[in-house]
């Protein structure tokens, strides 16, 4: 690969980053080529030693998305970060996607339970409207009790969701730090 080919590929793989960031990265690699050439290496030698521009770009993109999540942990940002980190290597399909699906499922399940408990008196009323003959006060009071419990679960889930989110972001950061990213024998 020539210098131009390398830089073009790198830039193309970074198209999702803001342009000033992209320019800055490309400039670092331009500097690397300039100094290498001045030391008498060929463009080919330098680009072979650098490794795959796509893999370098993946590393940069993953770091970028994880940082964005740290700034604002919106659902879209989290999904983008998880996706970018998974892209770092096949290995991550298991150790990132697996826990992510499990945690998302647990959180959704918790919220559904809380929601169902909270609306349970409505269900009792609905049931009474449809089948007035089976109405029992016990059902009504029990469902009102469930509403209270549901509210507590919702509050708990709110904090649990936040804790799990920040914990998972920390895990993503750790993962970016340790997993692959343009290593030679990968």
């Amino acid at each position, binding site marked *: 690969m020539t210098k131009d080919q390398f830089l073009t590929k790198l830039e193309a793989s970074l198209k999702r980053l803001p342009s000033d960031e992209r320019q800055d*990265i490309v*400039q*670092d*690699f331009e*500097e*690397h080529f*300039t*100094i*290498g050439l*001045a030391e008498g290496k060929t463009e080919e030698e330098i680009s072979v*030693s*650098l*490794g*795959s*521009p796509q*893999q*370098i770009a993946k*590393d*940069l993109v993953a*770091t970028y998305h994880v*940082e964005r999540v740290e700034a604002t942990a919106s659902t879209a940002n989290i999904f983008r970060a998880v996706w970018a980190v998974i892209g770092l290597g096949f*290995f991550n399909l298991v150790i990132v996607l697996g826990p992510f699906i499990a945690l998302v499922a647990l959180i959704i399940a918790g919220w559904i339970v809380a929601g169902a408990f909270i609306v349970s008196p409505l269900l009792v009323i609905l049931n009474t409207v449809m089948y007035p003959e089976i109405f029992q006060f016990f059902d009504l009071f029990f469902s009102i009790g469930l509403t209270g419990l549901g509210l507590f679960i919702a509050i708990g889930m709110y904090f649990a969701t936040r804790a799990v989110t920040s914990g998972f972001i920390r895990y993503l950061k750790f993962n*970016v*730090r*340790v*997993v*692959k*990213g*343009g*290593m*030679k*024998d*990968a």
Partner: protein
Amino acid sequence: MNVQFKKGVLELCVLVLLDKQDRYGYELVQKISDQIDISEGSVYPLLRRLTKEGYFTTYLKESTEGPPRKYYRLTDGGRIYLHELLQEWKEFTNGVNQLIKEGVNDD
């Protein structure tokens, strides 16, 4: 050596190299690849990340040959982080060396 393992260590290498003096990217890459077999390009994402995390600052300095170069300087936070990593590294390698010694002697 194991790939996953190497990337974590790369961070320590970069921090150690900047402890005594500021260096430019190419210089850091060469110093490391002289000793360890790496894809040289993977050092740059690492430098960017550590800079964003506040462990380095960067500045441009004129060079006698060619255009100015981007130098990296360790911050106070970076130095603290370096010493933490060094401590972990020493404990880790001591442990592994001890196990190797016992293992080899048992054979």
